[in-house]
């Protein structure tokens, strides 16, 4: 799988990116409803209904579907154990997107964790 490694890594990055975009749309749709967590069944049902009629949510789902299709291609090309570990690169995309698009502040501990994931993916890819 040496020659195809770059292609597989690219495809895994693509699914991770689609997942991240899905999360961003989901987050944006949820935030726009200004929902406070509750155990009230009626309020939760109303929240889910309001969420389901948001076009942004379905845009997110579309990316989720693309992600699934690409993921299946990845699995057809490589070992499961490699793909699963490498897929954790979505933590990196989420971290970057949270920091630069959502303007969330990230602590040192979280950057350290993200760094460890990058190192791990590097080792997993080498073998």
């Amino acid at each position, binding site marked *: 799988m040496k020659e195809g490694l770059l292609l597989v890594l690219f495809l895994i990055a693509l699914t991770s990116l689609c997942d991240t975009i899905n999360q961003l749309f989901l987050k944006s749709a949820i935030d726009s409803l200004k929902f406070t967590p509750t155990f009230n069944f009626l309020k939760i049902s109303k929240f889910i209904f309001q969420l389901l009629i948001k076009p942004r949510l379905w845009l997110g789902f579309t990316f989720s579907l693309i992600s699934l299709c690409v993921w*299946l291609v990845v699995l*057809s090309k490589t070992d499961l154990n490699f793909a*699963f570990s490498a897929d954790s690169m979505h933590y990196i995309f989420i971290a970057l997107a949270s920091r630069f698009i959502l303007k969330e502040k990230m*602590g040192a501990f979280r950057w350290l*964790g993200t760094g460890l994931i990058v*190192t791990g993916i590097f080792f997993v890819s080498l073998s």
Partner: protein
Amino acid sequence: MFKKKVTFKVLLLLIASDILETTVHFLFKKSTLDVSYGQVVDLTTMAAFLKAVFASPFLWGGLLTVVTVFILWSVVLSKIDLSVAVPIASFSYILIPVVSIIFLHEKISALRWLGVFFVLTGVIFVSLSSKERVEPAK
């Protein structure tokens, strides 16, 4: 307020979601092995490949398991904090290679195990960091 204590019941739910999460990826991999189709090289072969995969019962079993995991996970998160749940749920990073060796006959080198260990530690760090107090971004 959410309870933070991991009870035996919650732990069982977490282990169940771990095992099911592993099952999802195992079934997805199985579905791609199930179809006798050559390499995906372009969009045409990809379309034919996907058509074959979506006809596989393994794939639909996997998707059904995804929904089950989602429901289980929602129950777990209503009982304990995410920062507590994720490290325990990260057990699937170990479970997947084990399942890959036993059922899919994949080979895993020492270097790859080292990589898995780094990823696992990183995921745990990221989830624990949700307790970090940081100033809001300007």
